[in-house]
């Protein structure tokens, strides 16, 4: 771990943000939704370390609470996508033939739609709650993991120990989920880590367009959109949530890089 600098750096950054998210109610200096008419658009100071926004709300507190939303959307959306990917990819790879054809062509069709516009279209018809955003991002990003897992399973299922499992009378389900999937977990983990970064960016983008997490709930994306009108006079409202997004994405990318080293491939 000490020698794996990317992993250590990534884990440190993400660990810090995770702690902030977990303990936001305890460590945030102010209530993130309390409006203070006397302190509008204040620059960073001792009282407000990251300044205040156009409604006088404390920016540091809003970013801390925003971390909860952004990180959990990233984790759960990728959880959904990876779970679907494991199921579809392993079944397609193991059984091959017509089933493989149907699943993978369906994935190809889904890949033809630009994800962002697909999500925009879906959000137009649904209430954009946090839960819906998680579900939509998850349900529109399982294709990548599926293809990856299918490829891994295709090569793993030719290995001798799978034949040995058949020889002791193991069922297909047991072979897939007990023996094939655990051997494919390395690349899946790397892919999922990168996926979290992607999902956080996607949520920020959606919130920035006003279709993501709805105010007053703070997410890093919707803090950014509120900064747009005051960008000329209050740089801090744009810079700090932007930095939070940047560091988190960078952190997850470093973890993915480090995991690649751990699992021994590039």
């Amino acid at each position, binding site marked *: 771990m000490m020698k794996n600098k990317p992993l250590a750096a990534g884990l440190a950054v993400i660990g810090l943000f995770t702690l902030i998210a977990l303990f936001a109610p305890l460590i945030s200096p102010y209530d993130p939704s309390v409006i203070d008419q006397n302190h509008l658009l204040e620059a960073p100071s001792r009282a407000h370390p990251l300044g205040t926004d156009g409604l006088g709300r404390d920016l540091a507190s809003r970013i801390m609470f925003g971390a909860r939303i952004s990180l959990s959307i990233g984790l759960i959306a990728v959880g959904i996508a990876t779970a679907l990917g494991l199921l579809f990819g392993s079944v397609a790879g193991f059984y091959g033939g017509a089933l493989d054809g149907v699943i993978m062509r369906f994935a190809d069709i889904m890949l033809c739609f630009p994800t962002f516009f697909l999500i925009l279209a879906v959000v137009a018809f649904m209430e954009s709650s946090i839960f819906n955003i998680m579900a939509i991002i998850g349900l529109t990003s399982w294709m990548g993991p599926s293809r990856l897992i299918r490829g891994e399973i295709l090569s793993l299922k030719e*290995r*001798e*120990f799978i*034949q040995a499992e058949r*020889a002791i009378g193991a069922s297909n389900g047991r072979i897939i989920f007990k*023996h094939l999937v*655990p051997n494919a977990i390395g690349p899946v983990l790397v892919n999922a880590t990168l996926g979290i970064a992607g999902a956080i960016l996607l949520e920020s983008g959606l919130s920035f367009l006003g279709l993501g997490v709805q105010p007053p709930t703070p997410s890093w994306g919707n803090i950014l959109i509120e900064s747009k009108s005051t960008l000329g006079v209050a740089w801090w409202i744009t810079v700090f949530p932007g930095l939070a997004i940047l560091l988190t994405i960078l952190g997850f990318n470093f973890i993915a890089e480090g995991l690649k080293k751990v699992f021994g491939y590039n």
Partner: protein
Amino acid sequence: MDNLLEIRNLKVQFFLGSRTFAAVNGADLDIRGGETLVLAGESGSGKTVTALSITRMLPPNGAILEGRIRFNGEDVLAMDEESLRGVRGKEIAYIFQEPASYLNPVITVGDQIAEAVMLHQRKTKQEAGREAERLLGLVKIEDPRRVSLDYPHQLSGGMNQRAFIAMSLACRPRLLIADEPTTSLDVTIEAQILALLMELKAALGFSLLFITHNLSIAKRIADRVCVMYRGKVVETAATSELFTSPRHFHTKELIAAYEKIGRI
């Protein structure tokens, strides 16, 4: 003595792109209860394909075209997938050439043996774990408790083969098919594994089908020897008879090859 396994006129074909290849071309084979039968022959003569056909474990591009396989009076070729799974591991078990690659690299040896135990017996995870340790002791592994927690890459080839034998014997099969199980091991380990197999066979009473191209092994362990050549069983004889009066020219070739090695 009754035949435990009867193979009649077995024909197996492989599909290689648009071409077909007859790997086994009318093989006949009997295995009696409790005997050690060595199936000998050069590479590509159809030994392994015959062995895999017994529980229909052929790769997807191979197919049994013709013939009859009866195990314990039941027609193997007529069984559905469910009943086949009941035979594999429980009635007929295999051990293979490269033990390390036949064990799952991410699961401990003990857990893999325990899995084999639980597949065919009603046992809790704990009971299966204890049974796995007992089986590791049975195959003469010292300190079975520690080894059961090891992963295959932490063990030597000989140890892995012992562990694999333990897994194969987990459900006390009536027939053990050993496909060149000592070819990848060095000579002293080979002798140990052969001795172990003979000892286990005497203790547990299974029949052994041992596949090899090395007739010196046949001389050491076999009751009878079948010689395969180009997809057919060309000669079957009691071991002593085979070595004193071989009939088929390929048998003579194999014996000559082994005597040549003996002289070096």
